């Protein structure tokens, strides 16, 4: 099985240095893109590979790039890597940032050439301190070797790339909020349109892609779209970093063909449930995805199949809920997170999420009423898509609405027994 994204990740925790990266064929794709390829040709290749955005939205990356007008050489354009990995349950970009920084830099150089962008930023969340050190060292190595800076690879193309380390807040992962944060502002999302491809960082055309997305680019350029698509078991190209956390025997992170089934991940890779724990459900791609349950275990983990099952692939890192965890407390924990992380900009999210949080807390405490279920259901519509400024609140409603579907009996047990059945005191 080919594992292009993680082939250079070492088990001792040290990062793949420039010399090692080059020995393994690194920067050949960037050299080819910068010296031999036309920008449109790069974008078309990425589009043909059907690389879907790995941050969770799953939009065709080449298509996203094609919206940038590259005709005027005097316009400043930017490429940004979104390394603000803060989705609860998600720990995939961390491995790429800490283990193989040059793969990310190379992907961004190729994107910069395709988009005729001469400046870029790698935005990394504050908690990933090791990644900060590793990325900075790798940037220094790349500058010294002439892969960043003026006239890279001896061409007439120049590309400057900087590291930005954040100061917290989940909302920075929303691409327009990230842009505001890079501009030194509060990370409130912006109205779309205009999309960042038209007006992004400092009002200039900007592409924001997830770290894992960029890491795919060198391999697509080097081996072509046909090879890239052959890595996958679905029509969506490539491999994917999949993670499993919770009460499983072997929680972890694996690079696998896109489209492995949930069952394979859960049992073949994560080893199944720990002894004494039973499976109840899972969030397939982070905190803001709908629950899937037993009947969905044979769903392939690709964007289209997970959507068909009623959830989202999201970040591809699943959170498994066991039978000794209270579903109400589980969802309460998620909603508390989203309520804390609401940027406060739009009213439904700012006011609605704390309300939902209080209602869940009340039910968990054993003081809920049947009317509270109606209030929760009402919010899943009112905070749903189209009613808020960005996707934070609709994302928060996904685990809630599906918990109300699959675990409604557990909610009612709290109400009727006037206590949490999981608390033995």
């Amino acid at each position: 099985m080919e594992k292009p994204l993680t082939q250079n990740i070492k088990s001792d925790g040290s990062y793949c240095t420039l010399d090692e990266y080059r020995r393994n064929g690194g920067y050949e794709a960037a050299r080819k893109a910068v010296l031999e390829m036309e920008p449109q040709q790069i974008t078309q290749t990425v589009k043909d590979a059907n690389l879907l955005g790995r941050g969770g939205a799953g939009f065709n990356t080449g298509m996203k790039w094609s919206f940038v007008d590259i005709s005027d050489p005097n316009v400043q354009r930017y490429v940004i890597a979104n390394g603000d990995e803060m989705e609860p349950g998600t720990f995939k970009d961390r491995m790429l940032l800490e283990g193989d920084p040059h793969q990310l830099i190379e992907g961004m150089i190729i994107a910069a050439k395709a988009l005729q962008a001469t400046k870029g930023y790698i935005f990394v969340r504050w908690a990933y301190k090791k990644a900060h050190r590793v990325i900075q060292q790798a940037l220094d190595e790349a500058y010294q070797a002439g892969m960043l800076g003026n006239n890279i690879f001896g061409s007439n193309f120049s590309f400057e790339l900087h590291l930005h380390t954040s100061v917290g807040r989940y909302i920075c992962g929303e691409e327009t909020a990230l842009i505001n944060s890079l501009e030194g502002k509060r990370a409130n999302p912006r109205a779309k349109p205009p999309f960042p491809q038209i007006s992004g960082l400092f009002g200039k055309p900007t592409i924001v892609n997830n770290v894992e997305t960029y890491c795919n680019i060198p391999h697509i350029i080097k081996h072509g779209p046909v090879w890239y698509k052959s890595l996958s078991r679905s029509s969506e190209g490539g491999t994917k970093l999949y993670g499993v956390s919770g009460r499983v025997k072997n929680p972890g992170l694996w690079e696998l063909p896109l489209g492995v089934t949930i069952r394979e991940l859960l049992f073949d890779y994560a080893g199944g449930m720990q002894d004494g724990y039973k499976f109840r459900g899972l969030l397939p791609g982070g905190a803001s995805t709908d629950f899937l349950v037993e009947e969905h275990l044979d769903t392939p983990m690709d964007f289209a199949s997970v959507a068909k099952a009623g959830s989202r692939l999201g970040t591809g890192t699943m959170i498994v809920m066991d039978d000794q965890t209270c579903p109400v407390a589980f969802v309460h924990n998620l909603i508390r997170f989203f309520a804390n992380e609401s940027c406060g900009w739009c009213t439904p999210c700012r006011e609605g999420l704390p309300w939902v949080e209080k209602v869940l807390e009340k039910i968990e405490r054993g003081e809920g009423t049947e009317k509270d279920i109606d209030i929760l259901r009402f919010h899943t519509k009112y905070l749903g898509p189209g009613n808020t400024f960005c996707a934070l609140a609709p994302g928060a409603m996904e685990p809630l609405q599906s918990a109300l579907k699959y675990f409604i009996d557990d909610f009612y047990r709290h109400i009727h027994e006037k206590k949490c059945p999981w608390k033995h005191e």
Partner: protein
Amino acid sequence: MLTEHEIKEIEKEIALYPVKSAACIEALKIVQQHRGWVPDEQIKDIAELLDMSYEEVDGVATFYNMIFRKPVGRNVIYVCNSVTCYMMGYESIYQTLSKKLGIKWGETTPDGRFTLLPNPCLGDCDHAPAMMVNHDHYNRLTPEKLDEILEKYK
């Protein structure tokens, strides 16, 4: 007043951006690095240096949870309280820390040694429960492991 050293560092950041105010977050980070937190007076100084209003700078400072607007201890403990760590038992980690240190969320020990904060997902979900002390990650925590970790921070 900002020190000369702080001003120099902030000016280096200003040079990287097309507008001065873009260096706001970096300026706050620089002040916090030197002082441990960001006092009102330095909000005013940063505002002057970046041609911003006090309110604009404070609006940015209070938005981000890693900018401290009141003093914190010499060491800050960040306990992950997100969902995987919840299932894997972060509450017993918090209870043990709280008892050992005699403080609750958001508080600082009277000797100024530790501040205890909850934090969203630290990206250690496959080794939960997890926490950070200053810049260091700790995972697969059990209440028994905490003494040895705390010992490292004076």
